[in-house]
């Protein structure tokens, strides 16, 4: 039983990790939070849904499409809420993205209705037994994609020229600019990557629970925030470990506590961390 929960927790946690990576990437570069990130997550799932139901595409292409769509959305948000406002104050982009999240959420509700929709999955329900762990094909797919993306992301950030440019810009926007790095473009790219990750997470979570709704972004967005606080804002490892950790905690607490407390657990942890160790478990990026 516990073994099963661990697998479930890992699966859930890996999607949370992707969402958290999106948040942390934006925070690392700009020191700001994109409050509409949860909605990008949600819309990524809906784009994939549309591609599958209306376009007849396979789940593979729906994933790609969702990622691309989410990335585009992220770039639009950067242009509208961050580029014109990031030098104005820390608060202005935050408020703007709060407004955007309200806008996007109601837009989705108008277009798709307020109830949740099934996610038509073309993956067979098949189970595998690995010692004490029972894992479904779906979970394997989700885990493969999440961890695959995380690995690609790590490599990208550490090894590629653009990744290094992103890290440099993270350290100091000003110095990066002096060094000739096209800061504006790097920021735009970071948003694209962060949103792509968020979009994929939305699709994977939709697959996991076989349901997506216009409101799913709200809670997940807030949880993503919790994760990066726990893991250290701007810290990539922290985001990934934090996401996995939250996945485990949630799954376990549903098993052993009533489900309404489940959400509160994440936030209670976050509150404690803020009080005791505001830099997060892995330390935050100093701005």
């Amino acid at each position, binding site marked *: 039983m516990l073994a099963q929960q661990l697998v479930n927790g890992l699966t859930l946690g890996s999607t949370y990790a992707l969402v958290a990576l999106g948040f942390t990437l934006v925070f690392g570069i700009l020191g700001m*939070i994109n409050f509409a990130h949860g909605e990008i997550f949600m819309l990524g799932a809906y784009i994939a849904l549309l591609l599958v139901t209306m376009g007849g595409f396979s789940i593979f292409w729906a994933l790609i499409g969702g990622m691309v769509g989410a990335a585009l959305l992220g770039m639009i948000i950067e242009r509208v809420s961050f580029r014109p406002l990031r030098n104005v104050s820390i608060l202005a982009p*935050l*408020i*703007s993205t709060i407004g*955007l999240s309200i806008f996007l*959420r*109601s837009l989705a509700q108008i277009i798709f209705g307020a109830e949740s929709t099934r996610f038509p999955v073309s993956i067979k329900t098949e189970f595998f037994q690995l010692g004490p762990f029972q894992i479904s094909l779906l979970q394997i797919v989700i885990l493969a994609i999440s961890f695959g993306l995380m690995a690609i992301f790590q490599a990208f950030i550490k090894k590629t020229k653009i990744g290094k440019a992103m890290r440099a810009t993270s350290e100091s926007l000003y110095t990066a600019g002096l060094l000739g790095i096209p800061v504006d473009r790097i920021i735009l790219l970071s948003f694209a990557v962060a949103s792509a990750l968020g979009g994929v997470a939305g699709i994977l979570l939709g697959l996991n629970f076989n349901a997506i709704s216009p409101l799913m972004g709200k809670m997940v967005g*807030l949880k993503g925030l919790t994760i990066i606080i726990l893991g250290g804002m701007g810290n990539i490892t922290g985001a990934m470990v934090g996401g996995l950790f939250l996945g485990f905690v949630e799954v376990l607490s549903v098993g052993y506590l009533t489900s309404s407390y489940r959400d*509160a657990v994440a936030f209670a942890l976050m*509150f404690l961390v803020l009080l005791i160790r505001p830099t997060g478990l892995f330390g935050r990026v100093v701005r």
Partner: protein
Amino acid sequence: MIDAYTSQVLTFIGINSILALSLYITALAGQLSVGHAAFMGIGAYTSALLMTRLGWPFFLTTACGALMGGVFGFCIGLPTLRLKDLYLAIATLAFNIIWVVMLMNIEAFGGALGIFNVPKVTNNWTVYISLGILLLFFHRMQDSRLGRAFRSIQEDEPAARAMGVNAVYYKVYAFTLGAFLAGYAGALYAHFVTFISPHDFEVDRSIEILLFVVLGGAQTFIGPVIGAVLLTLAPEVLRFLAEYRLLVYGLMFVVIMLLRHEGLIEEDTFSWKRWSRTFRREGRAGAP
């Protein structure tokens, strides 16, 4: 005199104005709270429960509601002192969420269903007299030791401390006072809508209150009130938009941040000097 509908709108405007001012006072000392709805809810529940379960009179239950709000404000404000800007905002957000979840699970307080049949005692007199006193207070605070202490902390806390201002004391003070006022507004709210549930005090409400201050501007104490007035009237005015209401609402903030991020009301919006300057300039331009 006035019809029931208008009276109702006026009451909401009044209560929202008090809420806006309750957030403004914490912002004045440099603290941003995105969990004010929790304090409002604490006041609402305290007052409602004291009246429905113990039969206490209105003035006492609202006072207790405000006090409870203040107590919780103190308990949250003190440990979160070291947190700045974004971190404080997130901590208060977390508190709001946790509080709502906890409340939903306490059957003794009505659980997820809430409290029904709260006696409708709030009327426009109560609301507007309270608001009037509050406005007087803020007006008097402008040229006062208290007001300067808050503002100096907001501007540069270490420098304020070096000039003898006990920042810790004043920050907790501002936060507690804000929570106290939010609790009071919550009590007024409970005895007006007669039915309250945890859903009335979720993060959405906190964001709504935040938006009053953002729209109106935190430069003066009138700003948040104007913000509250406009945003309370907006749903009524935009009623024809039906389900597109929220779209406009959300988009509005994107637009405001782009056009006028400090809010509508600036320090000299109401000063004669500033407008006469504009007219003089225009007059001169028109001259041959």
